[in-house]
C-alpha cells in the first residue's frame, strides 16, 4: 500500500463536510467559528498535500497555507472581538438574534 494524495485528501474532505454541517446547523456563533476553522483547516491541508504530491519542487502551496494560517489568526481574533461585543450588546450570541445590521 502506498500513501498517495488520495489518502490525505479524503480525511480532509470529511473534515470539510463536517465544517459545512456544523456551520449550517449550529446557532452559537463560537460554534460556527469553530466549524469555519475546520473548513479552513481542511483547505490548508489540501494545499499542502497538492504541493507535496503534485509539485514537490515548488513551495507555493506551503506558503499559501502559511499565509492562510496567519490570516485565519487575524480573522479569528476579529471575529472573537465581534462576538464578545455582540454578547455585550445582546446578552446572547445566537446568530438568529443579530440581524440588526441588515440592509
Amino acid at each position: 500500500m502506498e500513501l498517495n494524495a488520495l489518502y490525505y485528501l479524503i480525511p480532509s474532505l470529511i473534515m470539510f463536510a463536517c465544517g459545512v454541517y456544523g456551520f449550517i446547523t449550529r446557532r452559537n456563533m463560537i460554534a460556527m467559528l469553530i466549524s469555519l476553522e475546520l473548513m479552513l483547516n481542511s483547505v490548508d491541508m489540501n494545499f499542502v498535500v497538492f504541493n507535496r504530491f503534485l509539485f514537490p519542487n515548488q513551495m507555493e502551496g506551503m506558503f499559501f497555507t502559511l499565509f492562510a494560517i496567519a490570516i485565519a489568526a487575524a480573522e479569528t481574533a476579529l471575529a472573537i472581538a465581534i462576538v464578545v461585543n455582540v454578547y455585550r450588546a445582546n446578552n446572547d450570541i445566537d446568530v438568529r438574534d443579530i440581524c440588526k445590521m441588515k440592509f
Partner: protein
Amino acid sequence: METSAILILAIPLLMFLFLGLAGKYLPHKWAGILGTCGMGVTMVLAYTVAFEYFFSGNSFFINEAGDRLQHVVFNHDWLNFYDKLTIRLGFLLDPISAMMLVVITTISFMVHLYSNGYMRDHHGVWETGFQRFYAFLSLFSFSMLGLVVATNIFQMYIFWELVGASSYLLIGFYYTKPSAVSASKKAFIVTRFADLGFLIGILVLSFYVGLYSEGNITDAFTFTSLTSVPVDGLTDTFSVSEGTAQVIRDLFQNSAAPMFMGASVLTWALVLIFMGGMGKSAMMPLHIWLPDAMEGPTPVSALIHAATMVVAGVYLVARLFPLYLMAPAALDIITVVGAITALYAAMVACAQIDIKRVLAFSTISQIAFMMVSLGVTRLDHSVALGHEVHEGLGYMASMFHLFTHAMFKALLFLGAGALIHAIGSNDYTAMHGLRKYMPITHITFLIGCLAIAGIIPFAGFFSKDEILTACFGHSTVWAIWMAVVAGLTAFYMFRLYFLIFWWKEHKVHDEHHAPHDQPWTMTLPLVILAVVSIFAGFVPFGSLVTWNGHPITGSGFLTNLENLNWSVAALSLIIAIVGIMVAMKMYKKENELPAKMRNALPRLWDWCHHRFYWDELYMFITHRIIFGLVCRPIAWFDRHIIDGTMDAFAAVTNKVSYAIRGFQSGNVHMYVWCYLAGAVLLAVITMICVL
C-alpha cells in the same frame, strides 16, 4: 495728423473711463463741463483733420488729377485669425469718413452743451446719474467715431456693436421706468438680430476674397481690398493694386463665380450686410425699435437716433459702395426697402401724437431717402427730365442728405427737447400755441421744418433735390413715389409745427409758470444748428464727396444752385409747398377738418396711428412663437425628458436595490445556503462543461 487722429478717438474714450469710474466723486457741474470741453476739443481736432483732408492739397489726400484718395493714418494689428484675415484697428480718411467726423463731433458737441441745461429741472436740480449720462455720451461718441474711421469691415463691426451697446445704455438711462427698460432691450435685440446678418455677410465676403486672392490680398477684411474694384471704363482712384482688383472682379463677375440659390455669393453677402444696415438704420421691417427708443433723454434721441447712429446703415452701404455696384440686385433690394420704408414712415408720422414719435418716424423716412438714393445709383449714362445726370450722383446726394439731415434733425430734436422740458409732456395736445412764449424755439423749429420740407434755400432742399434727380435718372416710378413721400414729409412736419405753435392759444394759469425759452446752454445749440441748417445746402458736396473721389461739380459757393436740375427742383418745391399748404389749412386754427378727415378714413387712421400693427406682430412672434413655442417647450423638454431620463436611471437603480435588498437579511445561515447553492451550481456547470 496721426496725433490728432489718435486723440480724436482717445479723448472720448478716456472721458468715458474717467467719468464712468470717478464721476461719482465729481460735482455734477464739473462732470458736465469736463464732458463738454472734452467733446469740444475732439470737435476742433476733427475739424482740423477734415480741413486738412479736403483742402490742404497734400499728396496723401489728393492726386494730380484732383481725385481724392483714401488714406490710412494708422492701422494696428488687433487680432489675427489666419494669414489672410487679421482684424486691425486703424484710422481711414476718405471723403465720407472726414465728412462723418465733422457731423458726429458737431452734433455730439451740441448735445453735450445742450444736456447741461436739459438734464436739470426748472429749479436747477440735476438729474440723478448726470455723470453717468456724460460718460455714456462719451462712450457713444468714441464708438461712433471708431465706426466711421474704420479701416476694415471688422473694425466697423466692432464699433457697430459698441454703438449698439451705448445706445442701449442711453435709451435705458431712466432705468427705473419699465417702458425705458423694455425699449432699450428691444433696440438692442432687434439690432443684434440684424447684426447676425451683418456678421454672416462679413464672413462670406471675407472668406471668398481671402480664398480667391492667392497671395494678392493680405487682409481680406480691409476696405481698401474690398472696395478697390475698377469698374469698366472709369478710373478708380481708390484702387490699391491691379492684381487685387482683378481677383475680386473674377470672383464676382465671372460665370464660374460661386453661386448660391440662384444669386452670386457677392449678392448674398451684400444683402446680408445690408441687413445689418437695415437694423441700425431702422428700415422696414426692422424699424420697430426706433420709435420706442425715444424713451431715452431727448438729447440722446437727437444725437443717436436722429443724426449719427441711425445713419450708420447708410454709411455702411456707402462704404462698400463699389462692391454694391457690382451686385445690382442688392441695390435693387435696397431701393425697394428704402422706398417702402419711406412711404410707410411718412404715413405713420402723420398720425402720431407724441412729438418725438413724429420726429422718429420722420427720421426713418429721411434715412430711407438716403437708402433709396444709394439704391438708384448706377454708373450708366442717364437722363432726368431732360437733363443729364452725373454718374454716381445718387451716392453724393445720399451723403449730402445725410449731412444736412443730421443738422436739421438734430435741430428739430433739440427743439422738441426744449418744448418737452418746458411743458413736461411729449404730447402736442399739451402744447398748442406756444409761439409767443418760446420765440427762439419757435423760430429755430420753423427753420428745421422748412429745411426738412425742402424749401429753397434751406439745406434740405438741395439734398432732397439731388436725391429726386438721381431717382428720375434711374426710374420714373420710384422718383414719383419719392416725390409723394417728400410731399407727405412737408405735410406731417408742418402739421407738427402748427399743432405745437398755433392751433389755439396756450392757456396759462400762472404767469410765473408760463413756458419760456430755456437757458443759453440749450438755446445756443439751437441757434447754431439753425444757422447751419440754413446754409448747409450751399456746401459744394459734389466736389468733396463722391463715390470714387472724382469731383463731379465745381467747388464754388453757389455751385449747388448752378447745377440744379430746375425741372426736378420745381417739382419738389411745388410738392413741398402743397404739403405745407394742406397742413396750414388743416392745423393753423382750431377747426373740424382733422376730425372729419379722421372719420372719413377711419381704417387708414387706425392703421397709421398704430404703426400698421408692426409692434403687435413682433410681440406675437417673440412672445407667442419664440418664447411660447420654442423656449418654453425646450426648457420643459430639458427638465422632463432629458433630465427625466437621467433621473429615471437613478430611480430604476433605486427600485432594483430596494427589490433585492431582501437578500441582505443579516441571517448568516441564509448566506451559507446561498453560497452553497452557488457553489453547487458552479460545480454542476463545470461538470457539464467537462463531460
